[in-house]
């Protein structure tokens, strides 16, 4: 058991290391003039050249990589080219905002989609099922930004029920904090509901068709109890893992949504750093996000193992 968890963590580390490589070398396909990006177009040429020198941009890429990794390992994510501030100082507040949004999205998503999945499974082939699966997946295929503009137009502008920007108001009441996040969160939910619901449905159906469920029914156990005790218990296990895997889509979705709602989260920061080629910022944010995703997935796996005796035993010897 412990051995498995350790192995899993080690794998995660390897993955992350590869991530760093991918990220760093992708961003170094083209070096670009870093100093110019810092000082902007109207700076003196001389200044630009000397700054490039100072920043060591003329060193071989590989040394730059090792230095970067070294920094990251010592918790130094580098310095933003645009703001000349520690990346961490900019990134982490942004991440916290994104986290709030993501959290709200998940709080709405998980119960809804799992319920949806269960309902669909229990009414397999019936209209309710079709609506949930096809409707859900169709919604999932529509990019967040499209949902965003639609929701903004309808609920923000036509009926002006919700604010169309999600500027955080510190010190506002809890509701005051959540209210502006509802529209953006709904965009994310719309895009994720389909997947999670479908996975849940698949899990439930598999469990429904399983021999052990038949056994339970043939034992004369009331349907509700069969579903509660025998079906869901087995069905929802895999769902955990899958929901975790969806986090990466969620993060992807944040970018577009945060832009439309001008929400100062990770997505907005990423967009800015892409536009202005603020590579240290870019690398750091991608790396951090990847780390978060990997971590969540590892946790999910571990939970999955712990909850699932069959696998638990398999891995423990």
């Amino acid at each position, binding site marked *: 058991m412990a051995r498995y968890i350790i192995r899993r963590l080690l794998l995660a580390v390897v993955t992350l290391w590869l991530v760093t490589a991918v990220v760093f070398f992708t961003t170094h396909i083209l070096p670009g003039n870093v100093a*110019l990006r810092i000082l902007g*177009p109207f700076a003196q040429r001389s200044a630009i050249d000397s700054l490039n020198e100072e920043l060591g941009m003329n060193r071989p890429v590989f040394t730059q990589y090792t230095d970067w990794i070294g920094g990251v390992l010592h918790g130094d994510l580098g310095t933003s080219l645009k703001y000349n501030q520690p990346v961490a100082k900019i990134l982490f507040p942004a991440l916290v905002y994104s986290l709030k949004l993501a959290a709200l999205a998940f709080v709405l998503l998980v119960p809804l989609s799992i319920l949806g999945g269960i309902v669909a499974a229990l009414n397999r082939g019936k209209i309710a099922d079709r609506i949930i699966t096809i409707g859900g997946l169709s919604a999932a295929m529509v990019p967040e930004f499209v949902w965003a503009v639609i929701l903004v137009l309808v609920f923000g502008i036509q009926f002006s029920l919700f604010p169309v920007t999600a500027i955080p108001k510190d010190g506002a009441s809890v509701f005051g904090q959540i209210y502006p996040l509802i529209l953006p969160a709904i965009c994310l939910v719309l895009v994720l509901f389909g997947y999670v619901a479908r996975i849940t449905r698949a899990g439930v159906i598999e469990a429904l068709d399983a021999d052990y469920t038949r056994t339970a029914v043939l034992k004369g156990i009331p349907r509700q109890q069969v579903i509660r005790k025998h079906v869901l218990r087995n069905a929802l296990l895999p769902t955990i893992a899958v929901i975790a895997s969806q986090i990466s889509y969620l993060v992807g979705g944040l970018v577009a949504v945060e832009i439309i709602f001008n929400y100062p989260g990770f997505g907005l920061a990423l967009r800015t750093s892409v536009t202005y080629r603020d590579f240290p910022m870019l690398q750091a944010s991608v790396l951090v996000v990847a780390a978060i995703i990997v971590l969540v997935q590892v946790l999910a796996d571990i939970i999955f193992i712990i909850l699932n005796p069959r696998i638990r035993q398999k891995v423990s010897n």
Partner: protein
Amino acid sequence: SSDSNSSDTTAVDTTPSTEPSVAVTLLRVGMNKPLQEVGPYTTADQGGLGILGNAGEYLCFSNNSFELEPRVAESWAANSDSTVWTFKIRQGITFHNGQALDAEDVVQTFLKHLDEANKSQAAGALSGILQAAGVKKVDDYTVEFTLDAPTGGFPFIVSSDTYNLIILPRDWTSNWTSDFIGCGPWIMESYSVEEGVTFKRNPNYWDPTRQPAFETMECTFFTSGASSVTQLLAGELDAVTFVDPTAATSLPTDQFTLQIANTITHLQVHLGCDAGVFKDKRVRQAAALTLDRPAIIDGLLQGYGDLGNDSPMAPAYATTDQSVEQRVKDIAKAKELMADAGVADGFDVTLESFKRDDIDLLGQVIQSSFKEIGINVTLNITEGFGYYDQAWLNSELGITDYGHRGIPNVYLNRAYKSTGDWNAAHYKSPAFDAAADKFMTSADFAVQQEASKEIQEILLEDTPIITPYFANTITPVSNKLVGFRTTGMGHFDAAGAVII
């Protein structure tokens, strides 16, 4: 907090009064997000200078009527040939840290900017005009600048137009973003690069008439003017410094006032004069003749702009000679010129620039306009500053953005003169250089106007650069808010503002 304050505003509504409402303690401003480190050396955009201008104070302030308001400097005077300028420093000014301001601080500020090591953005503006040696403290409240060359508009150059030049404490060294130290009407309370900046009023501000009426000014950053407008509509902002025309036009006039300012902010479309397809000036003229400028101003700026006549001598400048004939669209003439130049059936060319809403639009307009005379333009509009990195100074056709200046010297000096380091058009004309020098050296209005006429005519003839329009700034403010000022440069001044 927001809700408490909004309830206050409604409270005010019920009892309308012209008296500054003591109840309203918070001013909520939407402003452009600074896109690089905010600080005296580094700032190079509207967002940043907006902050500089509120926390800091300049020698003098260049306002929308192209006049200078004395600030840290009480008064200034030049010698006969305007090579030596003497500034009288105001007494009784203190920095946010309580330190008193005198001539030494002014001198140190200039020396800092002139020091190569600091890589100040202001260095460019001062280059060729002032050197460290030329900055001298006469007495505790007098500073003397000895210039390399006669410069009539020197006060403008050291005014808020060179927005980096806020007066700093002599011993200041630290990272400015940590304290935003200056002697302006506002003291930084909190700052986050992504979200915004909050100021509290500076109780010891030197000018009682400009003592802020609000306890706090909360500035929220926006990347798109549009989303700031929605906040304005939602009553979550009292004013937005600058919004794009379409966004502005969407605001209900009964709740909001649009403050329009003629500015010199413009886009320069440079045409390579020394080689390539635009070497022949007839071709350059032809190109310029394809643009339907009034339509562009209507279409792109919803009318919020002044006609450009292919020179930096904007109509808004007092010195500009309005009699010079305005270039208008004339395809027939353009085709003729093309034929004369031997390129009757046109050619292909790539237009280089960087991504920005107005540039995207103008680029596309140019593309379709040039097409009319057979010039096929390929747009190569790159993200970020790639343009300035490579294409800017060595492209046949490109768009470069220029910020507002109270006087045209910077443009003339750096973009048009043979020696200019931003001369993307590679334009070399002794006649022009002479005219430009004449304009810049003289402090005499008549002479300047005369020089301006020459410049306008030369440039209209040579057309090294197409200048289609000069944009206006649009500042939407709630009808309840009065006295909120912005400048073409991008400063916003809430010191005198009150909510009624």
